[in-house]
């Protein structure tokens, strides 16, 4: 017991004296709670999103019971075809057009769409006419896949590179390398390429393996998809290198990595569409490379987007990668 308490005390003191780690451990959950509270504020934790063409006021007259149902976010749209596309791509769970005879659209593979259909039947929408979504319906799994793979790449790249370099620095391996003619850029570049090869091979194996059973929708070019995912992974690794450029504290690095990955995980559209959320949240999401990677891969896979069509995303990711890598190499310290 004495030994246990001695070790416990020593560890507590170590933690408390590592001020940077302590500050992050305190600040991170605080910032997360505040951020989420703002993002999903308003007291109505909306679970479903229904696009409305023809005005939300009209809906409230036509189907007041549905309009009054809690936990549904109604998003007004003017362009019917654009709104149908949102349903097709799982960015909206349902679309209701009340400009003439009320009609609704759902994606037949959407679990939320299925539940909303039951909800409108029981809340004054029994007479609404169900319409087929024009064109190829995007299955839920096809919408979800780029997000899942993107998130996996993000975690592997950020933590895999960031933590490893911090550990090397902490245990003196970087100091040993510093005593050799190896340059810092050579070292960092080797880390980048190593992780890039690893993650690309893993992602390809996961995709190919799952594709044998699920047969993912792939409308575009595999080469463009490879380019986008390679650039996206490069960008994530560059962020990992930047975070690990100086710190020797694994706890501090862990705090920073969490601070970067959590917002990306929540706001990049990996799990759910940001359709209908505050405009500033949508704007904020644009600073995350994962947002661009997922948007581009979804466009390539589900809509057959060409390289020129996803070029804006490619440029953003490329510029971010260059900036993060250059900054990481510039501030890098062996010790």
């Amino acid at each position, binding site marked *: 017991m004495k030994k246990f308490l001695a070790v416990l005390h020593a560890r507590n003191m170590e933690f408390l004296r590592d001020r940077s780690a302590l500050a992050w451990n305190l600040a991170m959950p605080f910032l997360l709670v505040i951020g989420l509270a703002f993002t999903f504020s308003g007291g109505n934790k909306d679970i479903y999103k229904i696009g409305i063409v023809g005005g939300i006021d009209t809906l409230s007259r036509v189907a007041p019971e549905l309009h009054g149902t809690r936990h549904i976010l109604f998003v007004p749209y003017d362009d019917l075809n654009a709104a149908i596309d949102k349903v097709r791509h799982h960015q909206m769970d349902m679309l209701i057009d009340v400009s003439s005879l009320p009609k609704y659209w759902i994606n037949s593979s959407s679990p939320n769409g299925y539940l909303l259909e039951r909800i409108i039947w029981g809340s004054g929408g029994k007479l609404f006419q169900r319409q087929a979504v024009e064109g190829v319906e995007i299955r839920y799994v096809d919408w979800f896949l780029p997000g899942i793979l993107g998130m996996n790449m993000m975690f592997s790249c950020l933590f895999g590179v960031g933590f490893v370099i911090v550990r090397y620095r902490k245990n003196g*391996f970087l100091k040993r390398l510093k*005593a050799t003619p190896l340059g810092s850029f050579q070292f960092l570049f080797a880390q980048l390429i190593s992780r890039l090869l690893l993650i690309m091979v893993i992602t390809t194996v996961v995709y190919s393996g799952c594709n044998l059973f699920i047969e993912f929708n792939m409308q575009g070019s595999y080469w463009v998809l490879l380019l986008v995912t390679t650039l996206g992974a490069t960008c994530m690794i560059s962020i990992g290198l930047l975070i690990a450029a100086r710190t020797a504290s694994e706890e501090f690095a862990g705090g920073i990595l969490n601070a970067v990955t959590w917002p990306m995980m929540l706001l990049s559209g990996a799990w759910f569409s940001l359709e209908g959320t505050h405009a500033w949240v949508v704007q904020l999401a644009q600073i995350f490379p994962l947002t661009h990677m997922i948007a581009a891969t979804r466009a390539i896979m589900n809509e057959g987007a060409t390289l020129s069509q996803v070029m804006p995303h490619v440029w953003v990711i490329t510029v971010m990668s260059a900036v993060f890598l250059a900054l990481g190499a510039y501030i890098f310290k062996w*010790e």
Partner: protein
Amino acid sequence: MNPIISTTGLVKHYPGVVAVDGISLAIPKGICFGLLGPNGAGKTTTIEMLEGIHLPTSGSVLYKGEPLGARYREEVGIQFQHTALQEFLTVRETLELFERLYHHTIPIPELIELCALSDILNRDTRKLSGGQRQRLLLALALINDPELIFLDEPTTGLDPQARRNFWDLVTLVKSRNKTIVLTTHYMEEAYALCDQIAIMDKGRIVSQGTPAQLLSEHFGDVVLQIPKADAGDKVFDLGLSIGEAADFLEIKTNRLHHTLQQLIENGVNLDRLHIRAWTLEDLFINVTGKSLKS
């Protein structure tokens, strides 16, 4: 002879601490130079400035008469006091990794033989014993066939047998006309390996020279150790410089023949007399007023 490495007025400050306080050294080529001192004396900080790992706050380090430049990394070998290696690699793979970092290298088979690594070549570096690990680290320090080798407390934590094996290795390396800069707090190690030593205390060099020179400079006398039971009471009346240890007396004298005669004439039994030579430990106590192990 021009020194292979020299320093002038080397100073290193850390917040609130002067770790190294104006050290000037000139180390000739081909010798083993020992930097001695207790923990916190500034040995590691000094050697790391010589290695080019840390920049001095002031002062200069010259290698072959020139400031440390790009070629320095190619021409020196370093064994740090604490070093981790890339995990999940074998000894051979680790040698190959470091071999690829240099332009000019010793052939790996030669290095394996020199550092006696053949039995552990395929062993994971995490599973090496202390002695095996130090031999590998020495091999890594030698892999670029350096002219100048830094060994920072290379035998700390090793058992006596492993330590002696390591000394043999260092002696072998030295015989290849390499210059070795060694830090240690083992006096017998310094005595066995070093041609010149500098004793550091509180960031300064307090004494420097060959071990024999320093001992002769600081100690002109010898110590006679006689068991208390054999000495009798008369010995205290002879006007000798006598110190008392646990169960024997220590008599310091620079007139050995005369002192021995005095003792015999006064009936002191010398059957168990022991004449002790001064050691570097004594020297350190003499110049700093404290023990090296403190």
